[in-house]
């Protein structure tokens, strides 16, 4: 009677084999879900993300930017020309020097020949004396000339080195200022983002991936003086809601602390892109 019951099969070895099989099966399912269900965790994370707006400063007051570029180009051209001129002058000086030397050499040769011809009749002793004196003088003159030339070259080199160093210093300064500016821009953009996001009532018809681009004009006190939709998302309610969000923010008092140049280059005309990415629809 007992042996024909289905329990009899399970009961062999005190029921351990089926128990092990069942536990292995259950945990196999668990491991399967851990391996092949990345969506599970993704959704959980999505639910808790705060509202997030992508703001980019696309155009940074184009006229001014162009003028700065022009000025920089002009300056670069000028410094290039200056260097060219200096190099030309140095070359010319070197050539002249050489020519003069050759001339002097020729002159010396000629003189010596004349003198030797003229003084052939004179006493040999006298001739030797005069010759040695003249040669010594000549030698001295050449030495002096060489010295002078060396000194000049040295000065030129030093000037060149200091000029290069100055150039490098200026470049480093400029790049440092640029990165500082970029960081400041990031900070202020984040402030603006947060303020606007706090004022944003998302309409029910908003969907993930809608994109509206706004052009905002600011004054240095941080007040918004105009808001325009540059690129519509195609949903009028959504456009209105983002426009309202900026209008309601009204003023970003933090911008007062900003340097004037930074404000002029970046924040006077600001472009903000609204793209909700965390809506549940």
């Amino acid at each position, binding site marked *: 009677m007992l042996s024909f019951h289905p329990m009899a099969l399970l009961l062999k070895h005190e029921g351990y084999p089926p*128990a092990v099989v069942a536990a292995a099966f259950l*945990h196999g399912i668990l491991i399967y879900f851990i391996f092949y269900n*990345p969506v599970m965790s993704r959704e959980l*994370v999505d639910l808790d993300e705060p509202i997030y707006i992508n703001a980019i400063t696309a155009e940074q007051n184009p006229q001014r930017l162009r003028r700065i570029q022009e000025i920089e180009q002009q300056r670069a051209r000028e410094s290039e020309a200056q260097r060219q001129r200096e190099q030309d002058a140095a070359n010319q000086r070197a050539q002249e020097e050489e020519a003069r030397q050759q001339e002097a050499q020729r002159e010396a040769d000629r003189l010596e020949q004349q003198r030797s011809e003229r003084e052939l009749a004179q006493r040999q002793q006298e001739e030797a004396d005069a010759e040695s004196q003249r040669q010594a003088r000549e030698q001295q003159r050449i030495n002096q000339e060489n010295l002078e030339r060396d000194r000049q070259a040295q000065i030129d080199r030093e000037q060149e080195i200091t000029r290069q160093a100055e150039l490098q210093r200026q470049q480093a300064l400029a790049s440092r200022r640029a990165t500082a500016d970029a960081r400041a821009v990031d900070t202020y953009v984040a402030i603006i983002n947060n303020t606007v996001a706090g004022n944003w009532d998302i309409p029910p018809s908003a969907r993930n991936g809608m994109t509206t681009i706004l052009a905002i004009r600011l004054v240095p006190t941080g007040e918004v003086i105009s808001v325009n939709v540059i690129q519509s998302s195609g949903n009028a309610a959504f456009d209105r809601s983002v426009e309202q969000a900026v209008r309601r923010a009204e003023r970003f008092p933090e911008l007062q602390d900003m340097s004037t140049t930074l404000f002029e280059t970046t924040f006077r005309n600001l472009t903000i892109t609204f793209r909700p990415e965390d809506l549940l629809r």
Partner: protein
Amino acid sequence: MGESMNIWSMIVDATWIGKLVMLSLFALSVMSWIIIVQKWIIIKDAEREVFNFEKLFWSGMDLSQLFREGTNKLKKEDVTIIGMENLFRSGFKEFTRLRQQPGIDSDAVMEGSQRAMRVALSREERVLEKHLPILATVASVSVYIGLFGTVWGIMNAFFDLANQSQASLAVVAPGIAEALFATEMGLFAAIPAVLAFNRYSASVNSISDSYYTFLDEFSSILHRQAHSKPQESED
């Protein structure tokens, strides 16, 4: 980084303490499930046996006939006799054996058969209760192990946060997710263990209650036989 985040990568990226916690919780869960299923099989079988044997015993069948049937069943291959029938057989065997001895008085016969039944009873109870304490341990400890993993993970997350100049959710999120996963594993192991432990303790209690009741009832029957017809051998 959010795109590539899934549970597996989280486990791989966990600290070694986190991995240890998860691994031990997984092992505990496997162990507790083996015990859960095995106990379920054993306890169900015992309950069924109690039901069937009580029906058979009170059907008015002759007791020696019942004993012989059990002996025939045992002769067939690999069938073990458990539970109430085991009690009955050990008591009845002792009773008949003692009564066949000449000059033994009925009180001694009763005492001997009752002792034999009590031994069988405690053996049956031991089989039923085996491994239940492991379930209780898993149920209470795995929650704490999970909690330990969580506290560790959150502590790490805050260390990461402190080392960052700019605090952002992306820095702490993986650590906290890992931490919470440890708790989740702990609960995953603990909840079935708690349920099974409670359920099985109740079942074991009720089964051993019915064993005790049967022992008393059967003793009274044997008592009647021992004292009413002292000179008869088998009945």
